[in-house]
């Protein structure tokens, strides 16, 4: 009888322990992203393409009014967009933005889709960045007339091959590091890294290793500003990033705008506010 009593007691004790040590749910956690620093730079990145099941997975013209609405509502200083069909689509979007932004698309690389950057600064300059048969696009701009110049790089790494993602990332970071001494550099875009650690125990694969190498390489020189914001794409994936200088004064609002996607988009925009 005493054995059963001890086991019952132990069982109850363990249940009580599990309840006592249970972590608070996300809604109970303090909101660390609500603080808005003064004199901040607001950046947004968004892959506005469609999920793989669609015939054309690039951005669709019919979604551009909704994209423009989100940009006008959130009012970022600069926007990194991915998977546009080309210059014509960018012009349509700039028209919908009522002339409040300037923009450019990257050169066409080996793929059929383009990265783009939109900025409010009318004196901004745009620079194509070549990396492994692809082109990213950098914009140099000022968030205010008296603020220092910053660079935002819009990037999109290969969706299907981790080794190509790694080689692409290495070249982008090389480009960024050469300029990071003189100008704060922000790198934003869809990197397709599959690195989710929570509650999984995958065995070792070369793809994981490549993504791990790529992400770790970026973190040697940059800070992952959207780390706490959660998934940015369907199927619980965090594959869109904004990387910034490691010595930023403040990181304010960091949010994935989960109500923003329209049509069959598979990504949500990531918004980050930082202070210098």
């Amino acid at each position, binding site marked *: 009888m005493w054995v059963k009593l001890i086991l019952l007691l132990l069982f109850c004790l*363990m249940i009580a*322990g599990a309840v006592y040590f249970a972590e608070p749910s996300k809604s109970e956690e303090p909101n660390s992203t609500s603080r808005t620093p003064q004199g901040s730079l607001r950046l947004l990145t968004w892959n506005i393409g469609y999920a793989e099941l669609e015939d054309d997975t690039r951005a669709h013209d019919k979604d551009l009014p909704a994209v423009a609405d989100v940009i006008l509502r959130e009012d970022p200083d600069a926007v990194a967009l991915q998977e546009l069909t080309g210059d014509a689509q960018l012009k349509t979007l700039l028209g919908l933005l009522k002339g409040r932004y300037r923009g450019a698309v990257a050169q066409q690389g080996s793929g059929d889709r383009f990265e783009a950057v939109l900025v409010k600064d009318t004196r901004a300059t745009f620079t194509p960045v070549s990396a492994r048969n692809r082109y990213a696009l950098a914009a140099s701009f000022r968030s205010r007339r008296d603020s220092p110049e910053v660079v935002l790089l819009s990037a999109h790494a290969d969706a299907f091959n981790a080794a190509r993602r790694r080689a692409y990332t290495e070249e982008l970071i090389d480009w960024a590091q050469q300029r990071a001494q003189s100008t704060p550099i922000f790198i934003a875009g869809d990197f397709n890294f599959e690195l989710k650690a929570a509650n999984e125990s995958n065995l*070792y694969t070369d793809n994981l290793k490549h993504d791990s190498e790529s992400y770790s390489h970026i973190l040697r020189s940059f800070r992952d500003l959207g780390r706490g914001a959660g998934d940015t794409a369907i199927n619980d994936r965090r594959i869109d990033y904004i990387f910034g200088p490691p010595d930023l004064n403040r990181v304010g609002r960091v949010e994935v705008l989960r109500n923003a996607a329209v049509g069959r988009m598979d990504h949500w925009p990531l918004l980050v506010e930082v202070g210098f």
Partner: protein
Amino acid sequence: MFTLLKLELEKLFRARSFYLSFIVLIGFVVLMLWGFYTYAARKTGGEAVEQFKYTYESKQYFNGLTFALYSLLFSFTLLLPIFVSMSAGSQIAGEARTGTLRMICTRPISRASLVLSKFLVTALHAGLLLTFFIGLNLVVGLIFVGWGNLELYPGPLNLVDAPGKIMRDDALMRFGYAALSGTWALLVIAALALLCSVIFDSPVQATVMTIAAYLTLYIVGRVEFFEHLRPYFFTTDMDFWRDVFKPEIPWQSLWHYASVCGAYTAGLLLATVVIFERKDIVT
């Protein structure tokens, strides 16, 4: 109770399967060493260096502690649960199969004490297996791969979401913690196997049923279709033991999952005792 424990320990140390489990683990370490060595050689030179300019997989990364960690994490998922299931699954059903269970139960001992002593012996076996395996990996790692700090990167092993490092002495301490947390997690399998051992009269059946349940939940838990069910599988809770290898140990989460595993173990043991006390032993 102590006499019972002494007798069960004697049985354990006389069983060939006890020594077989250690021999298989030695074989696994040899296999891991070969794979790790050749992989490290490939990834720190030649084609890899030509293809990529930057790599964390320097020779410094591939050290004895990294080797021990990989070996431990790989084996814990698939190898150690098999031995624990075999050990626990044969405890009652093995006695039934050899015809000694009836004789034991005619002695003036309670069935609950018998179950408890068999479970404690199984727990000791699990602890010894894990401690031996960790120790062997560290020794082999030291001799054949060399010492260094334990560097962790996001992705492989899914331990961290940002690059981190555990200094050598601290890392050795973490392996000690892993022996404790790992054994605690394995007790869930031991308790399940003991329950199966009471339900089934064949040790093979008991072991196979336990492994089947474990593997089914483990695999189903990794398929995204069943993502919403994952938190309810004991295999998910068992993963807590790995948290001791995170640069900052999440103590609250660790105690939570350790308690959940403890509840599974105690609950399964209680069910085993209740069923065994009502069981009509005819073999």
